[in-house]
Every structure is written in C-alpha cells, then in structure tokens.
C-alpha cells in the first residue's frame, strides 16, 4: 500500500465528483464516514472495501480504484444503506452509479455481472420479456461456467418453472424502440 498523494488525487478527481452530483444527484461530500451504511450492509463480508470506504476513496480521489473494484458488483442493491444513512447520501444509488460509470470507463472487474446484465437486457430488448432459461443458459456458456445452477434444472422443470421456448409480447417493437430512444438520447449508436 503506497502513500496516497492526496493533493494530486483530490485535485484530479474534482470532475468525477461533480459528475456524480450532476448526473446522479450524489454528493459524497455529505458523508461524514459514520459507517452506518457499511455496518448494515449484508454483502460487506464479500467486499474488499465496504461502501463507506468506497465513499472515502472517492472523497480522496481514488476513482480508478473504486471503479475497478469488485465491491461495487458485490452490492445487492438492497437499499439498506440508503434508508439508514443519517446524511441522506444514498449510498445504494451511489453504488448503482458506480456500476454504470465502471461500464462507461471499461473498468468492470466482475465480468459475470456485466454479462448477466447485458443478457438480461438483451432478452428484454428482443422479446419484451425476460426469458429465464435462455438467459441462464447463455450466461453459463459465456462465463464458461457450464453447470452453474444446473442442479436445479430437473426439479424446476417438473414444477413447471422452466420454459424452453421464449415467449414474446404482442408488440416487442415498442420495447425495442424504448431501448433505441434511450440510446439516441445518450448519443450512442448500436
């Protein structure tokens, strides 16, 4: 662990904190590092840096480290931190923002999560609905984790919980257009 050259990191990261404020409405300066968020976080055990520490790192300018951290993907988005934060920092929303920013910056450390979310949205974009089986199968293939969750397959099939053919809504184009419109607004093309 090296010394953090604070005057440099803090200065260089002004833009990022401003972006968090303007785009996501998150002001990390509000946080007084009480730790109430981390203490109640159900996934803290699976994070190398707790949500409180991540906020501290942002305050201190360690942005790259935060965006490429695994912890932001371990967050379960349970919102516990947000309902308890005494300063209304909304750490859960911050975590969500960091996941989006990590994707923008190409710093995603948890490929499985990224693949999962991409596939999920792909399914919705294509069918208007989530096709659970199709998504799980593709997730397993893409992450090289062929039999993950497969042990539940037979039982679920028997219980009528698995459908192999994807269903579609009547008007899937309407949903696809939502995706396209959002992309247009963001100035992306796909």
């Amino acid at each position, binding site marked *: 662990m090296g010394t953090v050259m604070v005057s440099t990191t803090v200065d260089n990261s002004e833009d990022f904190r401003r972006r968090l404020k303007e785009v996501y409405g998150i002001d990390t300066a509000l946080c007084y590092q009480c*730790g109430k*968020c981390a*203490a109640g976080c159900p996934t*803290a055990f699976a994070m190398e840096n707790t949500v409180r520490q991540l906020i501290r790192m942002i305050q201190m300018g360690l942005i790259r480290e935060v965006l490429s951290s695994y912890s932001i993907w371990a967050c379960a988005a349970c919102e516990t931190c947000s309902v*308890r934060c005494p300063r209304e920092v909304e750490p859960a929303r911050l975590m969500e923002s960091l996941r989006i920013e990590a994707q923008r910056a190409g710093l995603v450390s948890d490929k499985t999560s990224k693949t999962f979310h991409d596939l999920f949205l792909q399914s919705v974009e294509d069918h208007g609905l989530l096709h659970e089986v199709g998504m799980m199968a593709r997730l397993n293939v893409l992450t090289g984790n062929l039999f993950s969750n497969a042990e539940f397959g037979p039982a679920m099939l028997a219980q009528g919980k698995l459908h192999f053919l994807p269903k579609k809504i009547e008007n899937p184009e309407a949903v696809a257009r939502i995706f396209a419109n959002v992309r247009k607004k963001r100035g992306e093309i796909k």
Partner: protein
Amino acid sequence: MKRIGVFVCHCGSNIAHTVDCKQVADEAAAMPGVVHAQEYKYMCSEPGQVLIQEAVKEHNLDGYVVTACSPRMHETTFRKCAGRCGLNPYMVEQVNIREHCSWVHADKEAGTEKAIDLMRMGVAKVLKNEPLKAATIPMTKRALVIGAGIAGIQAALDIADNGFPVTLLDREHSIGGRMAQIDKTFPTLDCSACILTPKMVEVAQHPNVELMTYAEVESVGGFIGSFDVTIRKKARYVDTKRCTGCGACIQKCPSKVPSEFEMEMGPRKSIYVPFPQAVPNKPVIDAPHCRYLQTGKCGICKKICPTDAIRFDDQDEVVTERFGTIVVATGYQQFDISAYEEYGGGRIPDVITGMHLERLLNASGPTSGKIKRPSDGKEPKNIVFIKCVGSRDEAKNRPYCSKTCCMYVAKQATLLKEKLPASKSYIFYMDVRTGGKNYEEFYRRTQVDYDGHYIRGRVSKIFQVGDRLIVRGDDSLLGRPVEIEADLVVLAAGMDPQHDARELARTLGIAYDAHGWYTEAHPKLKPVETQTGGIFLAGACQGPKDIPDSVAQGSAAAVKASALLTKTELTGEPMIAQCNEAMCSGCGLCVTICPYKAITRQPKQERIHGKMRERMVSTINSGLCQGCGACTVACPSSAMNMGGFSDEQIMAEVDALCQR
C-alpha cells in the same frame, strides 16, 4: 425655511490634509437654508462644542450639520451638544468626510468634491428633520421565571438576591427539572441531588421568591416593563395550606401508575410527589388516574388525611399578574427513540435511553441503584452505548449536536464499571466532544482507568435473539463492520426542544429556530437576550447545554433582568416607526413583517360624512419598536414612516447627492 448651520471639522490634519475644508464651508454657505458655515480644527473638542453652541444662539439655528468623522463615533457628542443649548438633539446630522472620504481618497480634488456632495446630503436631510422625543415606559419591579430547572432556579435566586421580587413558575409540581433525575454529574461525579436540593430549598425559602408550581402560562400581553401574564394554576386536589406533607395518603392510595420521574420503570401512586426531595413536598392527585375522581369510588386518601387537606372539588384557577421582565428557562426533553426503527423503535425492553440509565444508577431509583436490565432484572455484562442518537442525524431532522451526551456517556460508563466490575462497556461514537474544563481528562479516565471500549462508527441495527441483543456497527478505524452480543444497549438520546416550545414562544413573542430552540438576540454578544425587549433566556431552552452552562446562563439572564428592574422607567428609542392613521388602510402588512411584534391593528372611531364609523388602523408600540424600518417599506399606502430616517429625509438625501 429652517435656519441651518454647517460645521466643517479638520480633525487636525486628518481631514484637512486631503479635503479642502474651506471650499466645503464656502459651498455650504451658498446653499439655501444655510445661514452659517464655519470650519474648525477639532469640532468634538470642548472649544469646538462651545463654538457650536455660541453659533446656535447667535444665528438662531434650527438645526445643524457637522461634517466630520463617522456618526458612529461622535453623533451622540454632537446631539448632546445641541441639547445643552436648548436645541432638540435630533435636529442634528453628522456627515462622514473622514472615514468615508479624506482617509480613503488621496486625490484632494476628488475628495473635496465628494465631501461637498456629502455635506449637501446632510443639509438636505437636516432641513427635513423634526424634533424627536423618546417615550418613557414605566417599569414593574417584579420578574417572572418560567421553568424551574437548574437554569430557572439559578436565575430566580440571583434576581431575588439582587433584591427584586420574582415568581418562579413550573408546570410540573416540583421544581428541579431534569437535573433532579440525574444520578451523578460529570466531570466531578458529585451527586446531582446533593448539589441541587440545597438550591431547591434555598429558592423555596427565599423571602423574595414566590413559587408557583403546577402552573402554566396561558397568554402574555403588554411589553417590556409591564407584561400582563395570564397563568393557569392547575387543580391539585390537595389544599397546600392544610397539607403537612406527612405522606399518609400516598402510602394508602391503591392506584398505581408508572412513574414519569422513574422513566416508567417504577410505580407511583395516583396521589403522589414525584420524588422524595420534591419541592414543594406536598402531593397532588393525578386526576385521570384517581379512582374517586374517575368513578366516584375510593376516597381513601380523604379518609386517611389527618388534616383534611384533600379537595376533590378543586378547580383550575386562572390569574393575571404583571411583571416587568421575564426569564424563559423551560429546558429540553429527551429525544424520543421510537424514530429509530433500526434500533428497535423503543420496543426492545433492554434498549434504553441515557435518562433510563440515570434512574437505574440512582440509589433512590426504581432498582435502588442496582443495575438490573428492564426485561428480566438480570445484571448486564456486555453493555453497548450508542452516541448521537437523535443528534447529528439529518435523516431524523436533528442535524445539531446535543453537546452533553459525549460526556454523560463517559460518566455512565465509569459509574457502571464501578458498580459492575465484571461488566464491559462498548461505546460507539463518531467524535468525542469534550470541550469543557476537565472534560477531556474525564474522558481519558473512562477509557484508560475504567475500561471503556470506544469504537469509532455508527450502529446500523439492533435486534433481539433470545435474551441477547445483536448490535451491528462499523469500526471505521479498523475498516470493518463489527457485531456485539449485548445484554443492555443504552442510546445516548439527544436533546429535543420541549414539545410545546413553539407555542410558548408564540405566546411570548420570541423567536425560535427550525427545531424549536429559542433564538438569542445575537449568537455571540447577546446570548441570553431575545429579540423581544425584557425577555431573556437561560439554560437548555436555547439549545443543548450541560449544567455548568445552564447555571452560567441563569446568572447572566438574572443580571440582565435585574439591570432592568433597577430602573423606575425606561427610555424608548426615539427613532422609531410612526403610522399616519389617516393614510393607513389597515391592511396589516406591516404587522406581519415587524420582527418585534411592535405593531397592532386597532379599531379607530372616525366621523365620516357626519356618521361615526369604525375602521382598523395600525398603531406602533413605542416600547417594542426598535426602528428597523421594515414596516415602512412593506406599507403599500405609505402610511408608515420613521423618525430620523423618514422617506422625505432619505429622498432629500438622494436628490441632493444626484443634483450636482
């Protein structure tokens, strides 16, 4: 036209160096209305003033302008000077050609030009000046102290010692306030009762003090010097003149109620005194819980009383009395922890507040000073303290620090270790604030000598599993969440304003902040004054405070109140608002804008077309108006004006400045 004089001061060379004083005087002499203009080296000196006085007589002046230093420096000098030669002091204006001119502009030409403009402004203004006279207000030599906690007791004692009659009023039926509930006090650990009860007795026996307990203020009229206060004395159902305080009734009363004083951890009777050292030490009947008063059956107390003091037909009594000044010392209440659902919302019996623990620690408390936890009476081993509960928490609308809890937690952890050497206290904190004399040293002892284990972080959640409490917090220094299995959790609940603090403030016409703490007139320099003349603040009603601070404020408020009481009459501010009733439409806009509640709308009888009509007009209370001028601007009918700073005067100044 008025006959005006202009006196141009050189201030040695201070002015004369960069302003051509002669030119200023010459320009002045040429102005319409100016009948005399003169320069002199030191206008404020004795000879300078004599010179002015002689000129006034010689030229029969109606008013004069002194162009000199800042009026903030010598306005009073030159007004008094006018008074001495028979001129109304408010027929004088001073314009500032030193601080605002000679000292800041090195260019003599530009400086002189500006000095002339300023002189013209002064002349234009004084031409519109009117003689003003300050009203006098009679002083009622009697003080009221509302709230008889330690701050109120101290204030009452000090006023009484200064020789003035004072009424000490509390809505509870004993004086003492919260301090009476506290076991020992930081940082010396002396017993709270041992230092408080002598004061309670002293105040009760002081010949200048009238105690009025079990009483509430209903309304307040009037103003500084003569407040008319209407007080409701609640029915006690016990004739205090007959009652000897023998306590026989209390012993025999069959109706038990959870005691508020004991934080509902012990019982009291329906006829009761809240605690053994209560002052006055005579019981009252709690009507909603008394069997006789509710159902007509029982009456045991009446049967047993040896002096026949019980009065079931007692009624509230409402009296109105006049006081010259009021000290407000209504204190605080403990924050209600039910807002913290994550800490059990007050439903987990072994999650208690600081005040509960004070009672558990107290030898005359519900457990006789044995530390027994509420759920099962077991002695706790692991005790967790959580600080800043209901403080420094924006999400709970309590952004402020409660100032006392850091210290009382240190105190309580120390006392617990003394009582239960095998126990261990874990204290979750965000900061430890010990900014008082010997406070930091006390905190250090808690950590080092009394094994207080401090953990830096907030607790996120407490829940119960079996008979243990799981406490989850963060150790932000360690960088990891931590969990403690506790037997007892103490929430250092912060201080809240009294639930009805706002209503009382409105009754009194004093200001309060967003939370309900009373607002002092100036945060640094007028800490015990309010914006309302004659009303002072003491103790925790103004914001979280410990006992030393409350006592200091009690004494400070007493000095302020006594200073008023020494006067037989008060001189009002002469430069105040004036309402031209003929123009006033009675709209009342001025009434709402006045920060001192100095304006009232009153009916006015008028003869219009031969008929008597009544309409509403605004009237200024000269005792209350401080001359801020806000009303003059608010008035859409131009009915409000201000002596000394009238619309006409200021307009004339503007005109004079621009008309070069």
